[in-house]
């Protein structure tokens, strides 16, 4: 191809990529910038993207007055236990499914595989709530935590099993000879080798828990004090309380998406790898 065509073509290409860049980033940038606007500026609307007056107090007020402090702490609590729990159950399940020999293990693996085909998604929420009532964890975040941690998320199980499969079995045998049992082989030999898997499962669990909406919503509908950030935010919108305090809602959205965005920007390689790997294996 000659250069006369090539240069305009390249400009066109970059233009297209830039348009898609704006498409991808605009909503996030717009909402973050708007979270510093005054309430009246938001109410009037207009094409202004950058605030005319910067109002940092939005965040202080949202945190103290609009209850976002409590909501955030609940989200942190929920996310913390889901991440820690998923790392433990994920790696253990991966290890048992990869190395286990019992009939029980094989049956469970089949069932997890099979559950992917007959998943009813959000429609399982009501029966799950019934179970939680029986165990005595409805109305708290412990219900959603138990479901996320012990529910054997198929994606997580397959990523974990695939990862443990790649560790040479000679290591297990060596540990056996040194007197390690099935459990202590996992704790002393296998788990320390699973750092990348821990990172992947941790990030996936972090994303799920921090973003979760319907599961915590259904479990804590009537218990405002245990709402997470996302639940509180959506309620603010549909509850009709927003008109008087758009600025606080915007700040709330900021509080909700900033941690995720920052973690993603720092660890984007792991994020992208984890999310895609999850789907390919699952």
């Amino acid at each position, binding site marked *: 191809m000659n250069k006369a065509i090539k240069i305009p073509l390249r400009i066109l290409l970059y233009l297209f990529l830039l348009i898609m860049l704006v498409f991808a980033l605009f909503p996030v940038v717009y909402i973050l910038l708007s979270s510093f606007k005054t309430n009246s500026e938001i109410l009037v609307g207009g094409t202004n993207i950058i605030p005319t007056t910067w109002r940092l107090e939005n965040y202080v007020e949202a945190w103290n007055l609009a209850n976002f402090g409590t909501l955030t702490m609940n989200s942190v609590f929920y996310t913390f236990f889901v991440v820690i729990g998923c790392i433990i159950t994920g790696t253990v399940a991966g290890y048992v499914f990869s190395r286990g020999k019992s009939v029980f293990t094989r049956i*469970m693996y089949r069932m997890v595989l099979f559950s992917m085909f007959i998943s009813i998604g959000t429609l399982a*929420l009501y029966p799950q709530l019934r179970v939680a009532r029986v*165990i005595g964890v409805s109305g708290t975040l412990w219900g959603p935590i138990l479901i996320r941690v012990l529910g054997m998320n198929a994606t997580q199980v397959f990523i974990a099993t695939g990862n443990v499969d790649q560790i040479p079995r000679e290591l297990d045998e060596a540990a056996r000879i040194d007197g390690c049992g099935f459990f202590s082989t996992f704790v002393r030999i296998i788990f320390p080798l699973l750092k990348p898997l821990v990172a992947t499962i941790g990030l996936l669990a972090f994303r799920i828990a921090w973003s979760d909406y319907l599961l915590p919503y259904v479990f804590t509908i009537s218990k405002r004090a245990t709402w997470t950030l996302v639940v509180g935010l959506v309620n603010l919108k549909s509850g009709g309380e927003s008109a008087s305090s758009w600025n606080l809602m915007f700040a709330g959205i900021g509080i909700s998406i900033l941690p995720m965005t920052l973690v993603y920007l720092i660890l984007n390689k792991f994020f992208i790898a984890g999310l895609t790997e999850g789907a390919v294996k699952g």
Partner: protein
Amino acid sequence: MLKLGQADKTQEILMLLPMSIGFVLFVLYPIVWVIRWAWFNYDGYTTPVFIGMENFVRAFTRDPAFWGSLRNTLFIAVVKLLIEIPLAMLLATLLTSKIRGSTLFRVSYFLPSVLSIAVVGLIFSIMFSSYNGIINAMLRALGFIKKNINFLGRRDNAFFVIILVSLWTSFGLNMIYFIMGYQNIPKDLYECASIDGANVVQQFFHITVPLVAPVLQLVIMLSFLGTLRMTDLILVLTNGAPGGSTEVVMTYIFKYFFQYGEAQTRTQFGYASALAVITAIILAVVTLLYLRLSRRMKQIQE
């Protein structure tokens, strides 16, 4: 020696036990629960009455709204696929060729995929608000419209926004799948082709497309199933408004299980269970059909 093996097995079962109990309680039991109550008239207040096939008869003969929600879901899924697949493939092609700032583009395009769908719905409903939304303001400033468009209050407009938002949340992820697929294609194939005189477009259709076929299948299936399971976005963005016309399968059934939003429907667990069973069967059939088809396609290729 034999005793040691037995101890290992006990440890193995004990390690898996907590998750197995969780799996039975939170994954298996709900499925059994739904299958059981599908045959009952059960609203949570009065005593359940066994009514046989009645719930299914009702779904198939007297509930056009359910089939409407299914049609909506399929419409969203198909339109989304038709836009998303070419877009993701094109972006992946561009970003794997010699482009400056390729990483910047990749990281930016993927950002929407990590955000909470519910919060994303919130952000877009603010942007598309009919009275102070920035999209209306911009369209007006550019002179495209004189009066604000009611984006979420009218059916056709609402579908446009729903598809746009779900596209926004997933195009980056799908692009990454294609990039992964492209990386598995040997580079010398392109060199041979260009020596033989094939231009870029011919190379794309004769080398790239056939060789990323497995990835293409994966993306189609994930995108399709993802749309069938879509719930949060619709609840936050339109909640079925106006008048239930943008309801999708999951939100429609969800509202028979739980009261949500302003709609004061009374919960009907029995009927909801029957609808859940029907949907689960549809989902399973789609998945199986899909796996069949893709296996056959693979055989043809080989």
